[in-house]
């Protein structure tokens, strides 16, 4: 299914099109990597809802990105249970080895580093989400191994996937 068809299928689950804005934005973000203005306008056209409603949600919810993010979005939890298991050390390590500060993206567009609130997986603290996957019980050695695996996976990423990620040199 293309994006429009997916959004229309999602909208059929609700008696009101406005309810479908959130699912539509998740679909659009999956397709485009992030949600620039023209994509938001396309979503509002497909659903036939006010543009401002779409903009409102795209900026309210933290999982929506109106700015580009790296191919791999490293989302390290630093809430209490992870903090008690030294997530700070992991953040410092990631900042050092990636050469960026939290919130930043590496110049090659591979990694964006963020801290997030509790991921609901505190039994495996400290935890980091990368894309769809949770990585738990992390320490510095595991972080390094994970970065190596991600770099190797990036070697196999398609040009289109890389282009959808953050533009190089930002």
């Amino acid at each position, binding site marked *: 299914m293309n994006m429009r068809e997916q959004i229309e299928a999602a909208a059929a*689950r*609700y*008696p*009101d*099109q*406005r*309810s*479908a*804005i*959130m*699912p539509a*934005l*998740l679909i659009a973000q999956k397709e485009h990597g992030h949600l620039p203005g023209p994509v938001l306008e396309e979503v509002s056209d497909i659903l036939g*809802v006010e543009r401002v*409603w779409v903009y*409102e*949600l795209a900026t*309210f*919810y*933290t*999982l*929506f990105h109106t700015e580009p993010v790296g191919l791999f979005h490293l989302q390290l939890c*630093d*809430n*209490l*249970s992870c*903090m*008690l*298991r030294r997530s700070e050390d992991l953040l410092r390590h990631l900042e050092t080895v990636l050469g960026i500060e939290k919130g930043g993206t590496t110049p090659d567009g591979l990694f964006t580093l963020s801290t*997030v*609130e*509790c*991921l*609901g*997986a*505190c*039994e*495996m*603290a400290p935890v980091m*989400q990368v894309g*769809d*996957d*949770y990585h738990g019980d992390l320490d510095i050695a595991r972080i390094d191994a994970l970065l190596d695996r991600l770099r190797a996976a990036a070697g196999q990423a398609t040009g289109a996937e890389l282009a959808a990620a953050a533009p190089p040199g930002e």
Partner: protein
Amino acid sequence: MFEPVLLKNMDVPDGHLLSSYEAGGGYQALAKALHEHTPDEIIDLVKESNLRGRGGAGFPTGLKWSFVPKRAGKPKYLCCNADEGEPGTFKDRIIMERDPHQLIEGMAIGAYAIGAETAYVYIRGEYVLAIQRLEQAIAEAHEKGYLGTRILGSDFNFVVHIHCGAGAYICGEETAMLDSLEGKRAQPRLKPPFPAVEGLYASPTVINNVETLACVPHIVMRGPVWFRGIGPDKSPGPKLYCLSGQVRKPGLYELPMGIPLRELVEDHAGGPPPGRKIKAVIPGGVSAPLIPEHGLDVGMDFDSLAAAGSMLGSAGVIVVDDSTCMVKVATRIIEFFHHESCGKCTPCREGLNWVVKVLRRVEAGQGAPDDLEQLEALCKGIFGNTFCALGDGAAMGLRAALAHFEDEFGAHIEERRCPFH
């Protein structure tokens, strides 16, 4: 030994598949409910069981269901609260990942009881595996006729849809969740009208937590007397406890409601790491005021914890040992609430902003002599004056930290540094 109820399928291979669930007696409760009970009888069974909501507030589930008008002239809705944003909590995720049919069966019985034909599961978007498993389980249940039209030969029709959240803690508050489902920014609504009368799309709506709904098939199968016999009569049942933080064996434990907190932390979860002592435990997610070590003999149920000045909340039990600075803990908790404040009301939005500023400077050794009074004044301005419970939770949490660890806060200010660094 307590025999697990909610987690009984955890170690079954492929326990998330319908075939495994059926092999363990799954969907027999739904058949029993549809063939042997009227909707009102189901509500009565749940009332008699004394099941109380596992989402945090502990509201009696049967009573909540009974508030739904019988003849509404509008569709009714069931919403399952799977937003699980309370730091320290991960029980709903594990149910959905490993035993999603248990939830679907509970939803079907609940919907039958209240007369709803549609349910939405509001699940946090980060829970990718849980979302996949639940989608698969819904498809399987449709295929086998546990969902859809004329379920198991009855007149009952019911469908379940998944609605993914997008990273806002406030969506867990039930009325904010309804606004979010309607495609608006998630902000709590004024009550009354209560959702049971005017909820989703202004229709009668019941909102229940994942674990609450997962209890329902067991109550139907084994009866309310069995359920009430587990733990304290007024707050009974099997209970999931999420253990995390500075404890040897973090994880999800199922034990009776009312188990002493000390037993839970020291015996089941193995106590603090070697060479450490417990300093304090948060019993119910960061919204629940912390309990210092000497208070750990309290029972883990709604009433006992309330009497001890805390709350069961989501049963997210976070253990803090003696190597940790309580000012840092308090600061991190309030930073969370400040970040997640939806901004609708001033005491929470502005008050927490100030609290964070003061706490950060105290933690950094730059606190002013009257900062603890400032913090108390700020708590006073927030507590009881906010639109929803988020602001109150933040103020109560900070007050407990200040009351029990005043000396640590004081030392930061007097010594002009953190004694733990």
